[in-house]
């Protein structure tokens, strides 16, 4: 990362340190556009608590009896394989779908979220897998889309383009992405970079609870590392992060709390002290099934082949 881009009072090694949100407002005047959400509570305070929450679509029960909490300054990891109910859980948290059972408590108040806007107003921001970016629009326009900065009043109220470009550049630099040109269409960035733009955007716009939908799913090892680093940064800043993933190796290093989903049901909600990485991996991949598999693969590789061949013979 080149240091000449990290102006605006950023330390030269902007990667390590993220300025508190307030400091950033000062250096460019009235840039409060999207920050209407309530302030961050002290570390460890539950922001979101769900109790026995569930959702059914007609006859289909997509999610049932899920309980967990999202606390300020902590990362809650939601782990599950494909079809485990992760998407449904996200949609409920994000306000896109209303839950049909259980309690959804935000800041101690029970809520029925009717729209993503309602969730955003409470400081619950979601970064979806499609990242909610418009590929043909420049990076800076995407960064501020929906919460654009303006100057002037009445008919000459206009976009504050210079400030938006500057902030986009410095926010991204703080994440370790040094864009030469924030004017390029966001569709031209790599997957990891787009992910970081989306996360940086949510953080900048005052998210208190940040829901990340499989942010590392489509990324390589190094880019995943960058994304995990930023999750940790968001956490250190005092945000409650919900990190949805199917990779326990990504979840364990940054997570404080782990909730496992399988077939629409919770397999448990553990604090980090209650579970080890090995246990997490085992639970994720179906416990006993994996052990059997590992046993076969390690000790007698040829027996697995024999077995499967025998099975084929038997079933045919």
């Amino acid at each position: 990362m080149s240091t000449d881009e990290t102006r605006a009072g950023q330390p030269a090694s902007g990667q390590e340190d993220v300025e508190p949100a307030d400091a950033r407002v000062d250096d460019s005047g009235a840039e409060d556009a999207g920050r209407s959400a309530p302030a961050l509570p002290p570390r460890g305070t539950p922001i979101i608590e769900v109790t026995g929450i569930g959702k059914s679509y007609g006859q289909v029960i997509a999610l049932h009896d899920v309980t967990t909490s999202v606390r300020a300054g902590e990362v809650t990891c939601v782990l599950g394989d494909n079809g485990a109910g992760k998407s449904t859980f996200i949609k409920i948290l994000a306000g896109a779908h209303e839950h049909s059972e259980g309690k959804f408590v935000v800041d101690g108040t029970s809520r029925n979220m009717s729209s993503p806007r309602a969730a955003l107003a409470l400081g619950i921001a979601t970064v979806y897998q499609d990242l909610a970016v418009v590929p043909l629009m420049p990076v800076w326009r995407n960064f501020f889309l929906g919460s654009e900065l303006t100057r002037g009043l009445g008919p000459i109220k206009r976009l504050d383009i210079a400030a938006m470009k500057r902030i986009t550049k410095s926010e991204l630099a703080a994440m370790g992405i040094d864009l030469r040109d924030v004017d390029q269409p966001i569709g031209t960035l790599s997957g990891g970079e787009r992910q970081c733009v989306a996360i940086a955007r949510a953080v900048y716009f005052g998210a208190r609870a940040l829901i990340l939908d499989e942010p590392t799913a489509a990324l390589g090892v190094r880019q995943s590392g960058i994304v995990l680093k930023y999750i940790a940064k968001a956490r250190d800043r005092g945000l409650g992060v919900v990190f949805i993933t199917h990779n326990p190796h990504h979840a364990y290093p940054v997570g404080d709390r782990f909730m496992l989903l399988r077939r629409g049901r919770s397999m448990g909600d553990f604090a980090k002290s209650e579970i080890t990485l090995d246990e997490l991996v085992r639970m994720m991949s179906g416990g006993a099934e994996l052990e059997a598999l590992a046993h076969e693969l390690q000790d007698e590789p040829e027996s697995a082949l024999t077995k499967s061949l025998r099975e084929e013979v038997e079933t045919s």
Partner: protein
Amino acid sequence: MSTTTAPDVDERMVATSRATKTLRRPEVGSAIAALIVFVFFSVYTSEFLSDQGVGTWLNSSSRIGIVAVAVALLMIGGEFDLSTGTMVGTSGLMVGVLTTHYGLNIFVAVVVALVAALAIGAVNGILVMKTGLPSFIVTLGTFFALQGVNVALTKAIIGQVAIQGMKLVPSYDAIQPIFGGSFTFVGASVDMSVLWFIGVIGAATWLLLRTRPGNWVFAVGGAQQSSRQVGVPVLATKVGLFMATAGAGWLVGMVTLFKSSTVNGATGVGDEFIFIICAVVGGCLLTGGFGSAIGAALGAMIYGMTQQGIVYANWDSDWLKAFLGIMLLGAVLVNNWVRKRAEVSR
């Protein structure tokens, strides 16, 4: 791509030259085409560059361009409006009937027509957004409905299809210069519609590039679902765009009415496609999310210049449509190529 990290990007990036950047602007193709048309008719015919000639093609460009710019905004926002042409007739007829037949104050009638046009635009937008039907179908419906109403209702009320006696309406002379007046500029007779045109281009460009709603127009056209997720008011933006095209139709309706002191049931019919062609020739992507107001204005200039140039060149004026069709195809091909380059080559 998977192992790309930030520091690597710079090394792999080729410096983008100013020329390449310019070429990626949506209106470049139409600017070049407009220049070619302009130079060709200037050289080939003697009247084209004369005072009278310039005035004629400017005036005819402006009447198309006002709506074309609004249609371009709508197209950037990802939608179509086929009812814009008939809207010109509807608003003109409305003012005509309300004043000559019902004796309504002409200022009030003009405002009533504007409100009605905006309401029809809003209905278009709300129908498209609430039903999820393609705007092509919804506005095709409005197009035919208005076309029928224009003729049938006018006949039912005043017994004929054309407005007569506009000049006898009280205060006609007070409002006529605003929409239908003309003035001499450097020897050429220029209509007020040219000033309106310039105003519309300026307002649309300002809106698109410098305001929040303009940002939303690009966003809803480029990725509607994503826009909604980040809190862009998608419904309001799109309905607003449909109202803008209807409003532009109203403006040209007023220009037509007060320029010629009459409109009839067929006024504007068929122009809706010309507006769309101008927008596409001007670099708007049919799929939305990309384009410019200035491009559409240049598209309208190409249309106006060709229309008059063909007359001055003593060609059969039917060649105009053949030319427009070929221009459209060429423009779409160029746009696609430009878009692909804009998406990958950075």
